[in-house]
């Protein structure tokens, strides 16, 4: 792997995802490490990352990697295995903005990030987060915090859902109902969160991470 391989094959990936070549190289190393030097990665590979064990929403996140919607190709469905490109695509949602990013670009990034988050909740890809779907996420989210039981988690999910309903459809008629959170509503309610400045990960440019260090030296 490594240097010889890195320039050409990754150039188009770099264009597509906006990562720098160094970042791609780093991520590629990681990918190989996770997949056990295979070309593709499966759910089990990700599931077995030890650091993830404590993460309450592990399942959803892993699932997000295998979701076609996150590949920016307007496809719907679930993949069984993903290659490096897909892996990179998912990762690219977490790219931080730079000083050069313009306002529109930022807006686009924000939407992408929101979309990713939305997809994570919308498990059946029908464009709305229904109460059931939302409850599931909340339950898992709160499952690690000990004292909160399922009942409470449900109650919280319901309350949150109603909050969405009441902010988006302020005057609901008695015979109306709220089917679920659509993306527009989702966007609306998360207005207050500075998504573009928070949902970011530092992808190392040069300095190899601990894992990578083994590879290079």
């Amino acid at each position, binding site marked *: 792997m490594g240097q010889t391989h890195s320039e050409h094959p990754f150039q188009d990936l770099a264009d597509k995802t906006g990562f720098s070549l160094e970042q791609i190289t780093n*991520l590629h190393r*990681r990918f190989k490490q*996770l997949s056990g030097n295979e070309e593709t990665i499966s759910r089990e590979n990700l599931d077995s*990352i030890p650091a993830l064990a404590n*993460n*309450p*929403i*592990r399942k959803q*996140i892993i699932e997000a990697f295998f979701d076609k919607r996150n590949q920016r190709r307007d496809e719907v469905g679930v993949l069984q295995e993903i290659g490096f490109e897909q892996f990179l695509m998912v*990762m690219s949602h*977490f790219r*931080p903005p*730079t000083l050069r990013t313009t306002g529109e670009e930022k807006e686009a990034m924000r939407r992408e990030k929101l979309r990713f*988050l939305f997809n*994570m909740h919308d498990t059946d890809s029908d464009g709305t987060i*229904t*109460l*059931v779907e939302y409850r599931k996420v909340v339950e898992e*989210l709160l499952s690690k*915090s*000990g*004292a*909160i*039981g399922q*009942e*409470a988690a*449900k*109650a*919280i999910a*319901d*309350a*949150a*859902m*109603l*909050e*969405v309903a*009441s*902010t988006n459809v*302020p005057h*609901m008629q*008695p*015979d*109306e*109902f*709220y*089917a679920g959170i659509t993306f527009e509503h989702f966007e609306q309610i998360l*207005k*207050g969160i*500075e998504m*573009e*400045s*928070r*949902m*970011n*990960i*530092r*992808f190392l440019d040069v300095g190899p*991470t601990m*894992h*990578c260090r083994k590879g290079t030296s």
Partner: protein
Amino acid sequence: MAAMWRFALLLFVLLMIFSGASLAGEARGEDSQATGTRDDHGTGHGTEGGTEHDSGTDHGGTGHGSGTDHGGTDHVSGSDHGGTGHGSGTDHGNGTDHGSGTGHGSGDSHGDSHGDSHGEHGGPITTLPIVSWKWHHVTTPYLVALWILVSWLCKLIIEANHHVTSVIPESALLICFGFILGGMIWGADKVQTFTLTPTVFFFYLLPQIILDAGYFMPNKLFFSNMGAILTYAVIGTCWNAASVGLSLWGCHMGGAMGDLDIGLLQYLLFGSLIAAVDPVAVIAVFEEVHVNEVLFIMVFGESLLNDGVTVVLFNVFDAFVSLGGSQIDAVEIIKGIISFFVVAFGGSLMGFVFGLLISLLTRCTKNIQIIEPGFIFVLGYLSYLTAEMLSLSAILSIVFCGMCCQKYINANMDEKSVTTVRYALKVFANGSETIIFVFLGISAIDKGLWVWNTGFILLTLLFIFVYRIIGVFFLTWILNKYRLVPLEIIDQVIMSYGGLRGAVAYGLAMMLDEKKIKEKNLMVCTTLIVVYFTVILQGITMKPLVNWLKVKKAAVTELTLIEKLQSKVFDHMLVAIEDISGQIGHNYMRDKWNNFEEKWMSGILMKPSARKSRDYVFNVFHQLNLKDAMSYVKEGERRGSLEFVRNDTAYIDFKKKFGEDFSEVIPNVGADMSDDHVPVSSILRDNVPSVSLEMHDQDIQSMRETEDINTHHLLQQHLYKGRKQHRHRYSRTHFEVNKDENEVQEIFQRTMRTRLESFKSAKMGVGPQKKITKHSKKDPQQKMPNGKSTDRSKNHPYGDEDFEFSEGDSASGGEASGGSFPMTVTYRAGAGIENPAFMADFDPTGVQMPPWLAEADSSTVAPSQMAQLRLPWTPSNLRHLAPLRLSTRSTDSFLVVDPPSTQESSDDPPPPPRDGTHM
């Protein structure tokens, strides 16, 4: 009309000031004109403190006031020293116009023995004075209090004029008021009698402001930007100090400011005191601007920490100045640097330790809830003083103290205590902030202070401004190389422009030693000008600038549950992605820290019971529910029909019983009583009445009245005699009334009986059938959420709103009010009765019913009908309440669980949320 009021108020204040000033003037007038500086007063006073009790202590209370009264008291004691109490009597002869001569004599003659001054007059008294004027007896505290009042009134006037405060920040206006007040004093006295002395400022005004800032610090935000904040605070401040000092020195050498007796070290000392951005001023301005949170935390965090830094720098340079230029060699400089770090980190550590101490202490203050909040203030203050004593950075100490303890004390203490802490902190902080600004203004009007040196002053202003900009841009340029989300140019501009100087700089300048620094007055005066310039001019222009540059502002949003949930999802997601991509970023570190904190710190510092309900999301949920409940009550009150809510609250536990009855568990009614106090059963109330939906308003009214009367009757007839005393007893230690077990038990028992009786009759009626039909109706719906059926519109849980709401409504009403009213808590004592005696007594069949009770039977059910009737109105009107309604557990169980289990759910052990509410 309003304008007139304001005017009147202003007049009033002015009048008061005048009288205050003239009082002071009189005291002062005779009061040796020879008095040197005010500082002398302060110190002289301090030393005499031993004898002069009250003035000594109060001197601290607020200082400026003490400026004058110092004059007064000092004088008194002076004369006391000189001769006898008599002598002073004469020089206050002038004071007669504001009081009686006799009073004077008694008051001032014995400044030292304030306790019994009355008894022992200067000379033998011929007759017993019935009333006497003792102005000097109370001078110091009186003036202190008066000044506080005046400052706060200024704020009141300012805040009454919104159109002014929207343009000019409050801090600037306060300073201007200070000018006016100072002018009046000066006009009366010809000398400035009140100034802000460093002692008062650093010991009595500053700590609470900083504690407040620390306590309310958004910790997560702060720590995630810690690197940048520290860079600005430490390196930026040093840079400012050094560059300003050196440049001024350079200009001095170049002859730009004429003949001044200031050396390089003095310039550096001056640079260090003027370098720091002031948190008080910054908060005051930025609070009104609402910039985005990252920018805010940058400016705010920096200003908070660099105060610590600047004090340290100041002390180091002060020591250097004392040492003299020739003494300073490499070793001393290295020592200085070491001391810098020791002082800064030592201070932080000290604060950390005290923070842990507070947390530990609040673990075991359950029995002294009333003074529980006091510990935070006392220990916080102690952390400040201790750090000061060890010559560590007191400001850093108290900041970290507040930051460390916030989480744990909020969890450990009673909700009421937490509220008390929050409010009290705000009162103190805001109060002293106001005083500081007013006195910054007052201090200016002093002829003795003003030493004008155009070159020095203008150059200082220029350098401060320029170097701040250079520093910020340079440091940001470096930081942006490492920051995940770079700071934008606009943000940098605001940061540089937000370099407001304030009272800390002034306090430090006042602390300069005139013997060592000849041009102290020039420095003080320059500092003041810098403060006015930055606070007033930059403060006023800040808002337009922010708007003009289109700085990203913080969205002023309400607290929403979903946002909090999403934040949590975020955090976990980021950690997960970091894990997957194999990087160790700060999300990873934070996760590790959280785990550690969760495991160890919380375990040690938090009450076990508090830990349970501590979850953040849950807290938000709880708070929102409380809010909804309150608006619900408000709405009810607005409609003039709070009664049902109140009933729900009072009888919450009994209704529980009532519910269990329904599932035919009358005999064990008391048995599982203790396991919860969830008003689940309040749902059951609904079963009976939905018939009466068309009932007229009038009827309800009358019904409520009847019930009221009955309740009163019941209480009157059957309660313990002693209850009145319990009700009205004044207690210093408890707020709760009526905690007497017997009494509560009695009430409980009685009410239970009536409830049971009325229930019996209700059961014979329509109720049960009604209920069943309801449930069967609902049956198809329950499958819906799971099954995702096609015709959702009809059956979705949220669809049939009216119906659902009426169902969930009273349940949630009950539940919510259960959470929000202290009353429930009080009654809990009764609810938890497993008293065998009571059980024996409690035999529904054997209940003897007083005739009036039997009559009341039908109307006892009334509240439920009423409640039922009222509820359908609300949903459309109360937006906020909506989440509450569906969010409650009871409703939820209706939605998902099958009908039979709904009833079982009333027997369920309480869900965790209840614990939270009662915590």
